């Protein structure tokens, strides 16, 4: 038998069956017993008066501000996973960029051709104009450094990185004190690599580039990587772009490579003191040649006394490849922009002549016409 309420078709109608009045009564008593103990505060009317007395606009603004605070809190909660994901992504990107930047900037710069502007920028008496090498540009040293790093040992790599970092810190303002204004020097002194036990070499040897030796054929005639079998090494200052000398045999003097610049004996071999170990102001035993301004005296002396070829060839890549490259070891501070001016023109012209067949042929023809022995005019570049 169906009841009246069961005949109704709205939802939930069937639940109210007759006979559950006791349940309703129980619920009514339970609710009253739970709520009758609640006593509101006595200042209810005062609160209502205060709310009524509050201007409508202020009350609305206050309510709006409260809602906005809640809304901002909700938005923050909603966006928290997104923020965390964005932070993780940005951290990863920053790490990769930092790694790329570190790899890119930690490469040791090497020598690049000096510009005429820089060559002429020095004074005539201090000898600064004799600085004939300068730090290479970033792209240039990057290619060179890639070639070097492929064949160097891990220890050498670490050293290069460490010292090149020092160079980078100094080269940020182009490293040379005389090129910076005193104000800049006072504000930004030379800095060593953070955490390095070595001081800044550019600061201790501010003219390190003058004591470096730059065989031009190594600078401008670099073979392809596959054609080079003997690894290069750079001397201490070459890490900052001076020159490249052959890798000595283990146990031998690392700086005992032949340099002939003596008028007394054509076979004399001089071992220049590395610039990094010289005291300040001493540019080595050979720097007296160019201690005058703009290299004039050194050039005259060179022209007068002549250049001597090295009696021993270092085991360079050219040597190992069997290339006939009679080379002359220059002091870079006798290099002048004036170029060879005499019959013993062993001075390198700057910018250098192109190492091409046409150039070589032209120089030989000119040498024959002028009765200049071939190999003198183009000495240092190509036989």
């Amino acid at each position: 038998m169906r009841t009246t309420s069961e005949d109704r078709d709205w939802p939930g109608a069937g639940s109210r069956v007759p006979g559950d009045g006791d349940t309703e009564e129980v619920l009514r008593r339970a609710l009253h017993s739970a709520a009758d103990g609640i006593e509101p505060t006595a200042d209810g009317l005062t609160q209502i008066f205060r709310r009524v007395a509050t201007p409508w606009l202020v009350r609305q603004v206050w309510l709006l501000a409260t809602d906005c605070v809640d809304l901002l809190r909700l938005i923050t909660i909603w966006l928290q996973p997104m923020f965390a994901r964005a932070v993780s992504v940005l951290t990863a990107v920053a790490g990769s960029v930092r790694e790329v930047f570190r790899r890119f900037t930690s490469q040791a710069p090497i020598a690049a051709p000096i510009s005429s502007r820089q060559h002429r920028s020095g004074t005539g008496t201090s000898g600064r104009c004799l600085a004939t090498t300068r730090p290479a540009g970033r792209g240039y040293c990057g290619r060179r450094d890639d070639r070097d790093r492929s064949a160097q040992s891990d220890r050498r790599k670490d050293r290069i990185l460490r010292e090149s970092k020092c160079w980078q810190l100094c080269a940020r303002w182009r490293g040379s004190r005389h090129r910076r204004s005193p104000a800049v020097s006072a504000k930004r002194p030379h800095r060593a690599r953070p955490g390095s036990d070595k001081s800044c070499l550019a600061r201790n040897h501010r003219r390190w580039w003058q004591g470096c030796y730059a065989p031009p054929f190594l600078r401008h005639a670099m073979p392809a990587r596959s054609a080079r079998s003997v690894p290069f090494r750079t001397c201490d200052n070459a890490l900052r772009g001076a020159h490249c000398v052959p890798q000595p045999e283990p146990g031998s003097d690392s700086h005992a490579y032949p340099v002939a610049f003596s008028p007394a004996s054509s076979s004399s071999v001089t071992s220049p003191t590395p610039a990094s170990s010289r005291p300040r102001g001493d540019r080595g035993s050979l720097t007296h040649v160019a201690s005058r301004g703009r290299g004039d005296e050194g050039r005259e002396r060179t022209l007068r006394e002549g250049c001597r070829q090295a009696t021993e060839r270092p085991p360079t890549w050219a040597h190992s490849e069997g290339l006939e490259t009679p080379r002359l070891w220059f002091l870079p501070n006798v290099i002048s922009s004036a170029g060879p001016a005499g019959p013993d023109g062993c001075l390198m012209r700057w910018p250098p002549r192109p190492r091409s067949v046409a150039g070589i042929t032209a120089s030989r023809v000119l040498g024959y016409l002028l009765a200049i022995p071939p190999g003198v005019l183009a000495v240092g570049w190509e036989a």
Partner: protein
Amino acid sequence: MFGEHYRALVRMAALLVGDVATAEAIVQESFVAMHGAWRRLRDSDKALPYLRQCLVNRSRSVLRHRIVIGRNRSKPKPGLPRAERQALPLPEHAVVRALRALPLRQREALVLTYYGGLTEAQAASAMGISPGAVKSHLGRAVEALRAVLGTET
């Protein structure tokens, strides 16, 4: 009107929102709203239904806001006591716990009908729904409470 209905309205709002302070605020706001809309009330007898309707609407807003807050709130550690349980001044009665577990409309219908003593039409007017919907919500609420109370007893 305040002396006559304020306390009952606060208790009713406390049953709805589960918090006395919030209930007082809701009732006070309802009185303020009624004060602002007094000129629009053509009949003074409609002031109390207006108050009940304001109370139900504001309680609904508060509960919805709490639902959103609780949905996005981080989960507390299992050993820590719940803050909302500490903030609830109502006695831990079985009916109160069961009432808190009910849906919003069923809770409103149950409180207005059984505690407020309203008819289904009055409750429907206060809730803004039809009397049939009130009966439906009421029946489901009683069924749920019966199951809960039967289990606990």
